Each structure stands twice: as C-alpha cells, then as structure tokens.
C-alpha cells in the first residue's frame, strides 16, 4: 500500500483502515455480543433449560446482525469497538451474576 505521508494518525483515520476496523468490530465484537447475549438469555428465560437454550440460540443471530449494523452506524470505528465490547462485558457480568 502506498502511503501518502507518514502521519500515523492520519493513516489510522484514513478510509480503508477505518472501514477495516469497523468490519473487524462487526465480526468479532459483534460475535461477542451475540454469544454473551444468547448465553445470558439461556439462563434467564423462565422455561425448562432445553427450551430456553433453544430460544436463545435461535435469537442469537439477530443480535449478531444488530451488532454488525451498529458497528457501521456509529460515528467512528473506535466508538464501534467501545460500544460493542462494553455491551458484551455488561452481558458477561450479568451471566456471572445470574449463575
């Protein structure tokens, strides 16, 4: 890749890197949100365990899509990472708390 200048700050803010970063946020942090979300749902849905797990798994992919769209809708890529990681951290704390 040809860099127009060696200003790292400008490079990180540049379009390709920004978009790459958002994509990784959508893929990995988005998966974390879906995983923790479905893990939490499986615990808190007041049904027999096998039923709530089933429901949680079926819904998990819509969390994933929502998270990915989120990653592309916020202002900066850093905000995308921050939001998604924060959400999954909160969900994870809830899992620990419930179990």
């Amino acid at each position, binding site marked *: 890749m040809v860099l127009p200048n060696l200003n790292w700050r400008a490079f990180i803010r540049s379009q390709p890197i920004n*978009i790459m970063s*958002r994509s990784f946020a*959508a893929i990995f942090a988005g998966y974390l949100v*879906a*995983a*923790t979300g*479905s*893990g*939490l*749902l*499986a*615990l808190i849905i007041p*049904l*027999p*365990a*096998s*039923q*709530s*797990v*089933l*429901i*949680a*798994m*079926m819904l*998990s*992919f*819509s969390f*994933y*899509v929502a998270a*990915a*769209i989120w990653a*592309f*809708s916020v*202002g900066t890529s850093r905000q995308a990472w921050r939001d998604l990681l924060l959400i999954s951290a909160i969900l994870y704390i809830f*899992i620990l708390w419930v*179990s």
Partner: protein
Amino acid sequence: MKETFFRSMTWLHTWVGLLVCWVLLLVFFAGTVSYYRYEISLWTKPEIHSDVFQNYQTENLTHQLREGQAYLSQHAENAKDWRINFPTERKPYLSYSWQTQPEAGKRRGQFIEHIAHVNGQDMVTDVRNSRGGNFFYRLHFDLHYMPAKIARWIVGFCTMFMLLALISGIVIHKRIFKDFFSFRRNKGGRSWLDAHNISSVLALPYHLMITYTGLITLMLMYMPWGVMTAYDGDTRAFRAELKPGREQVAASGTPAPLIQLSELLPTVKASWGDTPIKQVVISNINDENSRISFYKNTGQSVTDLRIPLIFSGVSGELVSKASSAPSAANATHDTLMSLHTARFAEPVLRFFFFICGFMGCAMIATGTLLWAVKIRQKQQKLIKQGNKPSLGLRLVEGLNLTFIAGLPLATCAFFYANRLLPTQMADRAQWEIHSFFAVICLTAVLAFFDRSLTSWRRVLGLSAVAFMAIPLLNWGTSSQHLFQNMASQQWALAGFDILSFLIGIALWFARKKLAQTHTKTSNRVAASTAWAKKGKRVSTASTKEGA
C-alpha cells in the same frame, strides 16, 4: 450522520457481497438443486427405473416386514443395524438396507441398500455406486475436498455475511418499490442493477428466511453459548433433554433372539391409526438390548419431530415414552428447520422453492456482474489507451466466468459421468464428483486466458447443448426413456428430463442474447457510457443505491 450511515451501508453491501459471493453462489446453487435431492438420486440409478417403483400399501405391511426380516437375517447377520424402508411419495420403492460394523476408530459403517422388485421375490443388488442428489445436499454445507467442520465454518461465515448484505441492501435501497417496477433493458450497467434489484426484491422474504434458517440449522456449532451457560457445555445432556427419543442403548453382549417384527404392527396401529410407516430401524440385532424403532411418514406436516415408537427387540414391549405435544420452542425450531429444507413441500410448492432458490443465484450473480461492469466502465479510458484492466477486475471477471457459467456445465458433467462411467469402476461415486470439479477447473483455465464474451458464449452454449441432450442421454442409458416415463406417470424421472431440457433452452437464450450484445458492441458501449455519466451525476446528488 445519516449520510455517513448510508454510505457505510453501501460500502458494506458491496464489499461484503464481493468477498463471499462465489462461495455463496456455490452454496445457493447446490442448495437449490438439493430441493430435488431424492428425484436426482432416482435418476442417477437407472437400474431401478423399471419394475421397482410401487406405492405404499397397508395390506402388504405384514408380508413386507416378514420378507425384510428374513432377507436381512440371511444377508446381514453381523450388521450394526437394519432398516426396512417402505415406499414414500418421493422414494417410491421398498428397500432393505443395513450398516456394516464400523471399522476401528470410525463412528459409522458402510451403508448397503438392496431394493425389492415389484414381483416381491427378486432383489436389485447391483445398483451403480453414485452419490446422486446427496452430493449436492452435502456440497451445500460440507463443500468438498476438505474436513466438514472447516467447511461448515466457512459456509456459516459466508451465510452471516449474506444476512448482512441483505440487510444493508435493504437499507441502501431507498426507492425499493419504485425501482422494482422499472426494468430498463439493454442499458448496460443499469440493466444489471435492475436485474439485481428484481431478483433480490421479488424473492426477498425467501432470501431472508433461507439465510436465517440456514444459520439455525447449524446453530449448535456456531452459537453453542447457551449450552455453555445453562448446561456447563454438556451438549449431550442438552440433546438428550431436547429429543428424549434419541438416546442410544448400548449392546449388552448377551445374545437373545429377535422377535417377529410383524407382531408389533397391531400396537403401532393402535397409536398411529392408518398413518403410513416410513421406516423400521432395528439396532443391536440379536442382543438382549435390541431395539426396534418405527418411524412414521410425516409427509406434508410442517413440523416433523420424528418421534419414533421404540420397542424392545426381545420382549416386544413398548419402551419409548408416550409423546407429548412439542413445546413452543421445539415447534418453532422445527418449523424453521423444515422451512429451510422444504421437507413438507408438495410438488407445486417445491417448484416455487426451486424458483426462489434460482432467484437467489441470480441475485448473487447479477450483483457481482454489476460490480465488474461498473469497474470496467471506470477503467474504460485506461483500457482504451492500451493498459491492462486492474488485477481486481480481471480476478472478478475470471471468477464470474468460472462460477456463473461454469456451475451449470459442471452439474451436467456430473450427470453425464453418472451415466457414462463404467458401472464397475473403482471409486466410481468419487469420480462423478471429480468430474464436477474438473469442469469448474477447466472453466477457470479458460477464464485465465480469455474472459471475453466469446468465452461466455462458448461455455453457455456448451452447457445449453449438454442440458438439452439429457433426455437423449437418459434414453440411451436407462431402460425407460422420457415418453415411457410420462406414460407410466413416473414424474420424478420425466420431470428431471423435462426440467433439464428447459434449462438447456434458457441457457441457449442467454447465449444468443450475448451474441446479439456482441454484434451491437458499439451501441452497448455508447449506452453504458451514457449511463455511467448519468450515474455519476446521480451519485453526487444522492448516495448510490447499488454497488
């Protein structure tokens, strides 16, 4: 903010689509073909085309069970399990099959199936070795030449991207309804965009449904986290609780004689009435813990939880618990699964699923063609000056030719190999599959050297002729030709020939269309540059709606 959102969605749609489109096309294509999995399997076994097909008849059950048991105990005494398969709508023959004892370290043995002649005495045992429709079914999620686990992750990744591409596509498509009703023919890139819009929007509910339910079919692999938290990761316990009928009883090692299967029929009838039976499975044969499971033919009901009646093979006692009504979550899951596989669909509905599947293929194909056409226009000046098109463009155009034009030809190669390879050849079933991929590779080689419209015309023309000749191929290599099949109302076989012929005609028209475009190149270039200019003006005013 709003403008950024649209722009990033447009970006997302283009790049996400471009990254996974060829794998997705393969998966979509194989899935669409798999709607006719059993019909293809019938067609690929010409040995059973005559004197084998029969309907399910309740009054024959006792006799057929007795015969089956006698046959299996004579031919497959040491098998892992036995199956007696009764005729169904889509597999209209009676067969006795078994699984041999698995070799050390393997979970499954080899499956062997012998098919009964209609006269009730002879058996057809020398059916050619072919994967038939199961090849396309497996290709749909296991791909080929790689471990199934890796393939399923790749397919899952692409499916997730497809879901993203669909949703971002809806977001960026502001004028979804207006554009839907406008199709501008022969306008270069504009026409590709319109075709992309039509194939996407017309079957949009189907696309969303099939993508989401596709993820659901393998969700235990992709999203096992609910099992992690609620069952501490014990998948087995989860499965056992989910489907109580499924747990397997291990053999005890103490031999005990198997009862007559037909003695169980009155008990089965008491619970199921006259519902047809699809299959009887006998496991741990001649062991104290032997089990006999009856499966009913659930036919067109949407939920098919496959709750069997399980008997002890020694005492004939009913050991499965009485089945209660499925819970809401179970029923939802099962409905989503059967929406994906369309197992409930009768012929007309199945055909609609098939058409929708093809619309999905068209959506993917037109999307990537559209990208290539647009980029070529952007680079037109440079190309005219004698420069090479960029690597990305050459790559995309090459892959387009390989997969869009190559897949139908490869499918044809599979069917021709099925009928023309010697029946006793070693690894025959594998060689049919190798010929499928060999044709894709050959198309790739062609695409490497020449990606012009001439190549497209050649590949499309060849597949058109090959598809149109399928009825002839069948006539030459099966005991029953198309008109005999129509007369005897074997619509699975006749339909295969007719559909192939129609696909051949469609491909021929596509080829002809390209030939016309070729002669009018100057017109086309003029039209598309005009469009590109207009497109540029539009895109500065609002965000681009397409790629």
